[in-house]
């Protein structure tokens, strides 16, 4: 099988695994929608990976132990979903195609998403060779030495400790685990498969934003139709603005050139997902009274807090700042003014993992 086919299969496998993991959570945490399940599954994947990989990295275990532990867990979780959680999977597929207009919208967004994903997936100009050497050289070196980041990616010399600055980041170990278990080189896995998977998740985030901005579930047929059109135009324009906003320090640069790097993922993906979850809460503000059905955005925010630091240290301050500031007007109006203390409690809960990571960063 050619490398490109393997890479494409891996990109699809990432999305399927995220979708399956999304189904693990109780129904009210994913609203039986494929984009929400994929996004939640992606966040859950890296939250679990962070929780398993970080202690092993700190205690300098061999990479093979992590590979066995991670793939063992993934297999168990997939079996659990197939045996016990088939219903949400089937329902999410049904929800994807309820009507022809929505089918057309989904088809349009998928074409757009795939076009952007392939455009970025085939680009090899990642601008900074230093960072590329870290994000790709590190997993390659970890597999070669069977260590958790104890071989310098630049020189090939053994290190006594993992680099302190990057201690909390584990996403590069995910590539190492994939390489060790499936023999798919990180050059292919990161630059192609992971890039495509991340762009698709990002596009799902944009689609969800459009959906919450414009699609009213209980509205009349004409209004629903108009909502689909608006969502389609919104997805197109968002991509266009992002791809036309080049600056060396800006999000566009990270999105287009360094799509697979941890800090890029924090900049374009996490910020968008956090915004999307907050938007869902704002949209429900007038309709739901802290009912159980509005829990999925909270679950997403919580998982953002847990998994953000897996990608880069900037997430330590950007993720809680984004969550805190974007949610603050909602917390004030819904939580404080309307005295819905549960909202306040949830707000504290979603920020809690970020505080733990900041404390660990200072302590370790």
């Amino acid at each position, binding site marked *: 099988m050619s490398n490109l086919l393997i890479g494409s299969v891996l990109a699809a496998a990432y999305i399927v695994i995220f979708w399956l993991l999304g189904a693990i959570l109780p129904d009210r945490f994913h609203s039986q929608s494929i984009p929400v399940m994929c996004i939640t599954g992606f966040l859950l994947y890296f939250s679990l990976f962070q929780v398993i990989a970080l202690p092993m990295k700190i205690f300098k275990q061999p990479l093979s132990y992590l590979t066995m532990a991670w793939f063992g867990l993934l297999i168990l979780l997939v079996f659990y979903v197939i045996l016990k959680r088939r219903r949400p999977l089937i329902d999410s597929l049904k929800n994807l195609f309820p009507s022809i207009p929505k089918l057309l919208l989904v088809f349009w967004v998928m074409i757009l998403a795939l076009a952007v994903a392939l455009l970025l997936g085939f680009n090899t100009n990642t601008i900074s060779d230093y960072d590329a050497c870290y994000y790709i050289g590190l997993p390659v070196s970890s597999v070669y030495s069977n260590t958790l980041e104890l071989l310098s990616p630049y020189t090939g010399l053994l290190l006594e400790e993992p680099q302190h600055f990057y201690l909390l980041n584990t996403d590069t170990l995910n590539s190492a685990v994939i390489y060790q278990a499936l023999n798919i080189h990180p050059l292919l896995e990161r630059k192609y498969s992971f890039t495509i998977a991340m762009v698709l998740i990002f596009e799902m985030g944009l689609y969800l934003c459009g959906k919450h901005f414009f699609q009213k579930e209980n509205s009349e047929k004409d209004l629903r139709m108009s909502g689909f059109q608006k969502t389609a135009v919104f997805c197109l324009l968002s991509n266009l603005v992002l791809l036309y906003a080049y600056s060396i320090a800006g999000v566009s640069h990270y999105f287009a050139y360094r799509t697979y790097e941890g800090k890029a993922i924090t900049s374009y993906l996490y910020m968008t997902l956090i915004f999307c979850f907050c938007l869902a809460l*704002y949209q429900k503000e007038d309709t739901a009274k802290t009912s159980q059905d509005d829990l999925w955005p909270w679950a997403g925010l919580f998982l953002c807090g847990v998994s953000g630091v897996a990608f880069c240290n900037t997430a330590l301050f950007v993720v809680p700042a984004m969550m805190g500031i974007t949610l603050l007007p909602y917390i004030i109006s819904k939580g404080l003014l309307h005295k819905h203390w549960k909202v306040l409690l949830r707000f504290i809960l979603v920020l809690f993992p970020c505080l733990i990571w900041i404390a660990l960063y200072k302590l370790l």
Partner: protein
Amino acid sequence: MTQTIKEMYSFLAESFQIYSDNNRIWILFPIALILILFLGKKSDRKLFLATIAIEFLTIFNPFFMKFFLEIFSFENRYLRFFWMTLFFITIAYAMVLLIFHFKRVLVRILAGLLCVVFILFLGVPVFWGKEVPPYTKAENEYFTSSEILELSGIFHSEELESPTVLYGGLMLVYRQYDPSVISFLTRNVYQTMQGLSFEEFRDLDRYSKRLRELYLVYYYGDYSIRPDRFYRHLTYYDIDYVVSSSEHLDEYLSSLPVSLLGQTEHYRVWKVLPKE
């Protein structure tokens, strides 16, 4: 205090300038916020406008900025707070509000086209913009250059276990593909050399004289150092292969006990022969 606020204000302005790189597409951001103010729903106004107001009161507030910078000790990463202004979503959302504000389909189409023209006219595209890093399509299914693959074949042609190689910028690219070679050059030394002139590096006492001489020849092209000295340094550090991309270095090396192991379009790999 006033001085600090002034400093913080100019720091904020500079940071935004660096972040946006004067890309004119940012003009659309405040316009989008105004559009949302008039055309958006109540919840959207709260989400976009109240949030941006809080950002200006907190992370973009010159009164508080120093506090944030000190707490997180991330002065050089302050720019990353700008990630939080999701301009692409804000602009796109405002444009959709504007387009669908009109009732007639034809007017909507015209408004949509106008929005696209604004984006294309004001913005700088990734890959194909002026003074923008170009799009480089993968040249093979290994997602590295074909020359790296050729070099790997050369480095392993003698089946040495973890050969030590002296190469420059390749250090950052080659080991992404093949971790089984040891780069004699370290990231720190390479970065130091990239930032220093020949004279500055020559006078730098951070590294031993032997190491400096090695790099003065290899990196700075100072061929006034006697070849036998350079060869002694190579064997002292047990360097197996030297990669050259310069004809002058090739000429210099050819006077040493080295042999050409192989070559690619841009590189020659010289094997350092053991002392007799």
